[in-house]
């Protein structure tokens, strides 16, 4: 049993970490978020240069053929550095394109993305978040060789800067049925696609998207109703691992920042970190982080070994969400008033963790599914 990163992975983490330290301090991030919703073409290009867009795409699709361990290795660093670039939101769309039956348009979009071009936005979420792909409800109908999409998707991050959207929809069956789900590639400016874009609490740009009789040619259907659910799972499983890695990175940063603050900040003539109540709270933060991180690492190793069931992913996602909120709440409390302001990074890490908990299904649904069946 080996649960360590390889030397190559460690090097990649180090070089990404150093790059972000040099080029992406908190004030830079603040400026990028304020100016352009978290996306700076220069930083995006640099990340692509490091191979991060191509990292886990298959080699025959212009990728580097990296593993989920590679993905987790870099995503943890991005979370720790609070990267607002839509690398993670672009991941499932790219993976769906890479593993689905993409035609020429799709292949071109993917190749462009891999080289640092526009992200492929993933238009999948509905309602208050889908706890599993089988819950997709937005409808699609077949007409001739085409697919007609009608309905709405919520919280599509980076849709504004994407050239394409990967969209999940249902041609048959009721929400909950694995069969009947299709996945399609849609140009972001295709007729009938309307974006309602907004800032998100965690410094990104999201959009609710309406599809009104949007026509998708057969070549752009990435998976039909027999394969749609599997394709979504294939795209989402690495994404959830990366998302959890990002969150674990953020938690680790919060533990460090908070412990440092407790050592430096004085009240009553002594560091606040000398008060047992705060010491214990910080100890709890450290435990929550370690617990989440070990769950991440072992689950990642299982995924790498092909032994990670949907239940294992649910458990990871739900635990990281729960621990993340705990750690974020404690970080603010230990910081006191200053932790409540927009000035410090603490609140921004916290909101990133909250956003990650909300997406891809509320923790309560995942926990219940775990509790319902061993």
């Amino acid at each position, binding site marked *: 049993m080996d649960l360590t990163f390889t030397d190559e992975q460690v090097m990649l983490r180090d070089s990404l970490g150093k790059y972000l330290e040099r080029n992406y301090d908190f004030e830079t991030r603040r400026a990028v978020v304020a100016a352009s919703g978290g996306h700076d073409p220069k930083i995006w290009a640099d990340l692509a240069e490091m191979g991060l867009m191509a990292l886990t795409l298959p080699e025959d699709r212009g990728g580097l053929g990296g593993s989920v361990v590679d993905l987790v290795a870099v995503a943890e660093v991005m979370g720790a550095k609070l990267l607002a670039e839509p690398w993670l939101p672009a991941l499932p769309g790219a993976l769906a394109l890479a593993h689905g039956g993409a035609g020429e348009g799709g292949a071109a979009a993917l190749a462009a993305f891999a080289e640092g071009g526009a992200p492929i936005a993933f238009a999948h979420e509905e309602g*208050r978040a889908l706890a599993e792909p089988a819950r997709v409800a937005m409808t699609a109908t077949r007409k001739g060789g085409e697919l007609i999409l009608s309905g709405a998707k919520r919280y599509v991050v980076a849709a504004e800067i994407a050239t394409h959207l990967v969209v999940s929809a249902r041609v048959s069956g009721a929400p909950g049925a694995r069969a009947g789900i299709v996945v399609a590639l849609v140009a972001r400016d295709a007729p009938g696609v309307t974006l309602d874009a907004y800032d998100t609490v965690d410094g990104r740009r999201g959009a609710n998207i309406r599809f009104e009789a949007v026509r998708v040619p057969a070549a752009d259907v990435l998976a039909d109703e027999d394969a749609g659910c599997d394709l979504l799972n294939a795209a989402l499983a690495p994404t959830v691992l990366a998302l959890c890695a990002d969150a674990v990175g953020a938690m680790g940063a919060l533990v460090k920042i908070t412990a440092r603050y407790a050592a430096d900040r004085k009240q009553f003539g002594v560091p606040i970190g000398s008060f047992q109540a705060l010491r214990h709270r910080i100890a709890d933060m450290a435990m929550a982080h370690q617990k989440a991180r070990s769950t991440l690492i072992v689950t990642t190793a299982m995924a790498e070994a092909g032994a990670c069931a949907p239940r294992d992913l649910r458990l990871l996602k739900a635990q990281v969400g729960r621990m993340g909120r705990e750690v974020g709440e404690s970080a603010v409390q230990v910081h006191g008033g200053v932790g409540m302001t927009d000035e410090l990074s603490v609140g921004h890490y916290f*909101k990133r963790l909250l956003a990650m908990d909300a997406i891809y299904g509320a923790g309560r649904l995942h926990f219940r599914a775990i509790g319902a069946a061993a």
Partner: protein
Amino acid sequence: MNLEMGEALEAFRAEVIAFLDANVTPDLVEAGAKTTSVFAPFEQAMRWQGILAARGWAAPNWPVEHGGAGWSAEQADVFAQECERRGLPPLLPHNLKMIGPLLIDLGTPEQKAKYLPGILSGEDFWCQGYSEPNSGSDLASLRCMAVSDGDDYLITGQKIWTTYAHHANRMFLLVRTSTEGKKQQGITFLLLDSMDLPGLTVKKTIGLDGFPEQCEVFFDAVRVPKANRVGAENDGWSVAKHLLKYERGGGSPGPALRRRLAALREAAARADDGMGGVIADDPAFQERLGMLEADVISVDYHFRHARGGGEPAHDPAYPSMMKTLSSETSQALSAMMIEVAGLEGLPRQLDALAVGANSGPLSDGFDMVAMPYYLNTRAASIYAGSNEIQRDLIARIVIPA
């Protein structure tokens, strides 16, 4: 034990309802719905205070000679229930639960005459200058100096976490007038007649929720007459402690908590649960909601128990307990709010949250309010003496020396 019930109380309820029917305007209800803090939107909260003051109901608990309503506890409950039912915004506590009661207790006759009418009517709004950058939990270490200059003091220094200072036209604050002896000595309590005094600057602080609620206030030789002192020079700490009694657990947390709980219930009854139903029908949600409601009610009952003359009325730990229990209950409530909102809580909708905004919420009002309220409410366990400080105070009383 005895609870007042029956016809007289119902007659009073009818009177309240008639008054509310005649006076509540849509912007007040909108302000109530868009309250993402313990502090309601300023303009509407003050307008509503003015309307109530005109009726003699702005500060029902004050002594009647100063404008109180002379209500029984049950009447106060009825009034709170009816306001809660309409979703009216809470009044801001600064005037009515802080500086007003303090001046009634400790102000000079001149101060009472000069300030109480504006405090009650809402013509004035008072902000509170206590915390400083290095004096938060350790408030007594404050260093904002007031130097004697004839009949005046000259104030130089800085305050922080001054809620709504950018809306205020008056301020009460603690300053250091002596550096001798224990740090609690040498503090003086002052009143500022204006926020536009020469040398005074207000800078807004943006919070986690994206709103400016707190401010920094800078003083550069700001001149204040000594007649504006409450209590003796260097005795401001005991004045502040007197005031803290009102601040911590002084008012009933029940109505605000119940109003948010009702909103949570209604939202859960509309919100899809991701499994084809609505969240309100999920037994797991019901169990946790039931636990939360039980806590809301227990906190409310603890207040009532004290008000009804029971043991908590004589318990020196009561204010700290109420502060701790009510802040943590509101935090638990806010956590369930973002749970119900789910993804819909993630868009940042600062514009739509303004009272009178042209744009509506992306999904609905509850979803729009949930995240800012959750984030803002993190402060409840920090301000007015952090909950760590409160637990220290409680332990000091409970554990024999």
